[in-house]
Every structure is written in structure tokens, then in C-alpha cells.
């Protein structure tokens, strides 16, 4: 059973859990993810493995409550068990072993960036980081990121901390003032990743993104997660999730992420309703 061993509330809508999953922990590498399901009638959702401890047999997940499944998960506490959890899925990130790398995390995307930054830092890479959120109270894992970076820049949409604006603005400033990076890794909401990629494109700096399309099985069986990279169809769950951001068809990816908008609303309404909170 996938028992929750520890839980931290990072922001009102972002939670970190440490889950007992020895087989997954034994194989996990930075960049990989799991798919889990909370209840018998539940949906399967992907979450990145934000950290792992092979000795203790645990993995760490950080998630933002955006819809029904993540809200259900948010209510689970220490001692509760997640019904199903499978992984590690996806290709491990191919991380550089030297040089200077810029790690960019937006919103809950800081969580998936962290294991990569940590792994590179441990290999001796000079890691510079930018973390962002809508406002200061939604920033996560700042301490953890500082521990593995030589510099950390902060950006908030409302200016309540650090740069007033998007993480992509900060990338631009750094590139404009001539800072050199061998690679950039940007992870976060799809629109944020697209903005970052557009900023770096004129500079020709290799920019990796971690795509997050809708998934079902996570093993290449359904094709729900397909996206176009360099004009070719790829299955994110087996070919990714990391791709060269300059080769991704962003319009298609954004459009596909919205397929179930209507149903996602219905699911949340149905959940509220079942709990006596029906809207009149």
C-alpha cells in the first residue's frame, strides 16, 4: 500500500507528501513521474517524482489543487493510503554533468525542477535558478532551491516578492545582460513554458521543457498524451516528458490540454454537490 508518511502544506493550494513506494523509489531518477488514483471511481493522474529516498523506500510528490483529483489527494493525511500508484514513468532527464545551467520553475513547476537542480548540483554543475508564482504566499521550495543553486531569482505576478512579473522576464534580463548558460530547463504551467521558450529562442540557448499533457495509462498504450515535436508525433509518457522546447508545437499542446475543461468543471461541481454544497 502507498501510505502517506509525511505531509507539508506549502501554500494554501500546494501540498507535499512523502509516500511509501519502495519499488518506485528504488528505480526513480530525476525527470520521471508516477500515475496515481485515489479512489475506486477515481481518475488516473500524473505527478512528478519531486524527490526520492531509496533507503526509506519513499518518494516525494508536490501538487497543486486544481481539480477534483488533486483536491481529493489534498485531503488525505499521514497514515492514509493512496489506492494505486505506478512508476517510475517516462525517460529520466539527460542532465549535463558540467557547465552552467539555468533552472526555471513556475508555480508548482518548482517541484519537478528541484530534483534536476539537485542532481546537477551534486554532479558539480553551476546551477542558477529562477522561481516564480502568482504571489509571494504561493512560492514553494525556496529553501530547497537555494541549497542547490549558486543564485536564486524570484518573480511574482503581483510583485509581492522579487521581480514584478513573469519568470520569463527574468530569463530575458539575464540573457540580455550577457549571462551565459549551456542549457535552460523550464518547468511549470504550459503557458509559462511557452513564454520561456519564446524568450530564449532568439538566443539559441537549448531550452528543455517538461510537457504535461493529459494522460491515461502512462505506458504508450493510449496515445492521449501525444504532442508534435519537430513535426513528428511523440507520446509524452514514453518519449518524454522532457522535450526541446524550441521544437514543440505549442498551439497544439495548449489546445489539447483544454479538451476536458467542461467535464473538469462538472467533476468539481459534482463533488461539491455530493458534499452538500450545491450551487442553487
Amino acid at each position: 500500500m502507498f501510505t502517506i508518511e509525511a505531509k507539508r502544506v506549502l501554500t494554501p493550494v500546494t501540498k507535499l507528501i512523502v509516500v511509501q513506494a519502495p519499488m518506485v523509489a528504488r528505480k526513480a531518477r530525476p525527470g520521471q513521474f508516477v500515475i496515481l488514483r485515489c479512489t475506486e471511481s477515481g481518475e488516473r493522474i500524473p505527478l512528478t517524482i519531486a524527490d526520492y529516498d531509496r533507503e526509506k523506500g519513499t518518494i516525494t510528490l508536490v501538487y497543486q489543487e486544481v481539480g477534483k483529483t488533486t483536491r481529493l489527494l489534498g485531503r488525505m493525511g499521514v497514515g492514509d493510503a493512496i489506492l494505486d500508484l505506478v512508476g517510475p514513468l517516462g525517460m529520466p532527464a539527460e542532465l549535463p554533468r558540467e557547465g552552467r545551467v539555468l533552472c526555471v520553475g513556475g508555480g508548482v513547476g518548482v517541484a519537478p525542477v528541484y530534483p534536476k537542480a539537485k542532481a546537477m548540483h551534486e554532479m558539480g554543475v553551476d546551477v542558477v535558478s529562477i522561481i516564480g508564482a502568482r504571489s509571494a504566499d504561493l512560492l514553494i521550495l525556496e529553501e530547497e532551491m537555494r541549497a542547490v543553486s549558486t543564485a536564486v531569482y524570484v518573480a511574482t505576478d503581483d510583485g509581492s516578492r522579487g521581480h514584478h512579473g513573469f519568470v520569463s522576464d527574468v530569463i530575458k534580463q539575464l540573457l540580455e545582460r550577457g549571462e551565459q548558460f549551456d542549457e535552460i530547463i523550464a518547468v511549470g504551467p504550459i503557458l509559462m513554458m511557452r513564454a520561456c521558450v519564446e524568450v530564449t529562442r532568439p538566443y539559441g540557448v537549448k531550452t528543455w521543457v517538461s510537457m504535461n499533457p493529459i494522460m491515461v495509462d502512462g505506458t504508450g498504450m493510449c496515445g492521449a498524451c501525444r504532442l508534435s515535436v519537430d513535426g513528428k508525433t511523440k507520446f509524452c509518457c514514453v518519449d518524454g516528458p522532457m522535450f526541446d522546447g524550441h521544437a514543440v508545437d505549442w498551439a497544439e499542446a495548449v489546445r489539447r490540454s483544454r479538451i476536458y475543461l467542461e467535464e473538469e468543471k462538472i467533476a468539481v461541481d459534482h463533488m461539491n454537490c455530493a458534499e452538500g454544497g450545491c450551487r442553487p
Partner: protein
Amino acid sequence: MTSKGSRVEMPRQAPKERIKNFYEVALGYTPEMAMETARYCIQCKKPGCVKGCPVNVKIPEFIEKIAEGDFAAASRIVKETNSLPAICGRVCPQEEQCEKYCVLGKKGEPVAIGRLERFVADWEAENMKIDTPPEPVHPTGKKVAVVGSGPAGLTCAGDLAKMGYRVTIFEALHAAGGVLVYGIPEFRLPKSVVAREVEYVKSLGVEILTNVIVGRTITVDDLFEEGYEAVFLGTGAGLPKFMGIPGENLNGVYSANEWLTRTNLMKAYLFPEYDTPIKTGRRVAVVGGGNVAMDAVRCALRLGAEEAYIIYRRSEQEMPARAEEVENAHEEGVVFKFLTNPVEVIGNEAGWVTGLKCIKMELGEPDASGRRRPVPVQGSEFVIPVDTVVMALGTSPNPIVSQTTPGLRIHDWGGLIVEEQTGLTTREGVYAGGDAVTGSATVILAMGAGKTAASAIHRYLTEKQGR
């Protein structure tokens, strides 16, 4: 000898009713109907039917017991050679197998062997407690790993357990059963029937670990290291194919795998009681002519589509789907567009499907398979307005295991290379069978392969001990 009974039609839900629900279409025989049907069999001394069955079910013998009203005895006879009769009775392509070779079929109609098999299996489930299997006589103390819990894996595991092995099945998904749970819909094969068979295999002492992907969570090498002495790969053929035509990534285009997995495994037809959604347009086109296409199109109707099309590039005679299911689809109002091939999926500004552009085909010279090859008719393009397109073009084996197991060799098309009589792969101690070896085939063939491999594994481990 002349026939006394008659081939009784099995009662079915009326088409207008059944397209509004996911309950089983064929409702089953009453004991009287079964006995009447059983008396129709003339008890051939040299029965052709048995040769047509890939696992050689003792057909005249079990049918005789039904005619006598001794259903328990009939059930025992069936189970001697077929451990999943409730499933085979429902989904075997009988018209290509047992019933094709029934002598009565030459002049009139063959005996309804599949329906009788289903009857005894269902009767047993309702009326007899599953006999607790006897303790294995010689628990060998040896461990065998089975990868995949489809019909191949379940059969192999069950047989090995009966021979005294400690068997663990590793299954990637959260539920056991393979295509039987994620692909074939409830209205053709109720999931409770699959669950019953899975429970039976567990009752033999088999452990089933779901949520384990071999090649990701654990590798074949790890399994050997953990003390498993042989491995059976029953990983199926789960990779979907797309056509490579423009517009295939538009919103509203599904692979049949995704369409059926959402519907069956995740129960999207019960949304929002179940959380997984599916987008069913008013008009749905399913591309393909096999069982998978029939299942997908009939799901579309039940999910609420007003118009449902089958788009198939050859003609009706060439369709590989089971005759019974094609007939069911016709009755339910599915529109068949034969000799029609998609060339482009058309979408609107927002990226949603609005139509399927097709070209008319005509039959030319026979191809390698002996079927006349469909060739496009120049300038005959036309657009069928639809909101959803489901691609049911066949599947190929998933490379996750072969890519992570040194020494395993595969054919160009992805199938595992094995020795036919044993299922032995190119790696010592590793056996394989079912769709992973043959590509998409049938439940009964997958079971047969599981059985073959189980005896080969038994021989291998016995010999190895002697060495």
C-alpha cells in the same frame, strides 16, 4: 443419427433498448433452452468441432451432459481443457473455430457450441461454489514470474500454480484482466465475469501485483535476481496505430485504445459518478473493420452518439470482425461506409474535429494476404461531417520489456521471437505467448500459448534441477 433438438437463438436485449445501456446484449439460456440446443447435437463419433477448437474442448461429451440435465458434469468436462469458459463462450470467434467444423453446419446451422459453453460456465458460477482446488501435490518451492494479466498470463499462472509453483503476476494497470478489462466492453463481456476468473486464478495461490510495470518498476533481470527461476511474458499488443494523415492530433481524435480504456476500465460512461471523462460527439466515425472497431462504434452509440459510422477501406466480406458483432452493430443502427479510406481529419478554428475527409476505394489485384487490394479512386474525395474520430487500425507489442531485457530478440514489427512448440524466447528461462508474440489475435489463442509455455517452463525447471 438425426437431430432431436434445435439451435435455439439466445435472447438478446432489443436494439433500441440496449443502445441506451452498457448491460450485456446476449442474455443467456435458460436450462430448458440449453437442453433443447444440446439435443440438436448428433454426438458425432469423429467430431469435427473439437478439431476446430484451439484447446480441443471435449464438445460432444459436455453437450451430452447438458442434454441429460447434468450441468455440473458438463462444467467439469469443459474445465478439463478450458479454464476460462465463461469468457470464451462469449467472445470466441466460433464461426471460425468450433462451429465452423460442426457437421450440421454443412447443410443447415451448426450447434451453438459457444452459447452452450457460456451456459455451463454461468450455471456453475451461480449454482456451485468454485471447488477449492486441492493443495498442490508437490509444491516445488520454486518461484515463477508472469508479466501481464491478460488471458495468456492468467492461464500460464493458473497452470503453473496447479503444478506446484509459487507464481506472481506483475500487471502494469490497476486492474487484472488485460484486454478483457480495458478493451472488450461490458455489454459483450461483463467485468464481473472477468473478476470471477481472476479470483479463481488467485484461489489457486497465484499472487497478483498490480501497478508494476516490468521494464520500469522492475526489470526481468531484477526478477531473476529476486529468485524467480523463470519468467513468462504475456504483455499483449498494446501500442496503438495512427494513420499518419493530417489532422490526427485535433481535439476529438482518439485511438481505439484510449476510447475503450476510458469507457471500460475507467468507466467514463458513468461520469461524473466516475471521474474520468470522455468526449462523445453527436456524430462519431470509427476507422477500421475488426472487433476493436465494432466495440468502439457500439460504445459510441451507448455514450450518446446520434450517428455512428464504420469507415472501412475494403468491402463487407473482408471485415475481420466476428459475424455476430457485425450483425449486432447493424441492428443498433451503425452506418457502414465500405471501400472508404480517410485522407484527412478536418477541424475548426479552435482545433476541434468537424469532419473526416475520405476517398472512395475499389478492389484491385489480390495482395500478399490473398485479399483484393483496395486502391483509391482518383478525385472521389468527400467529407463526412463528424465531431469525433476513433482510429481502430490494429495494435503492436509494447517495446518496454524488450528494450530493457538484454538478450530478448524481436521481429521488425515488434513481436517477440519464440520457439513455437514451447514459447521459449531468445533468452534462457524467459518464455512468452499471446498477442506479444503473434500480434493482435484471440483470447483462446492467447490462453493456448499460456498453457504451452506453462508446460515448457515446468519441463525446463524440472530438467534444470536434474542438472
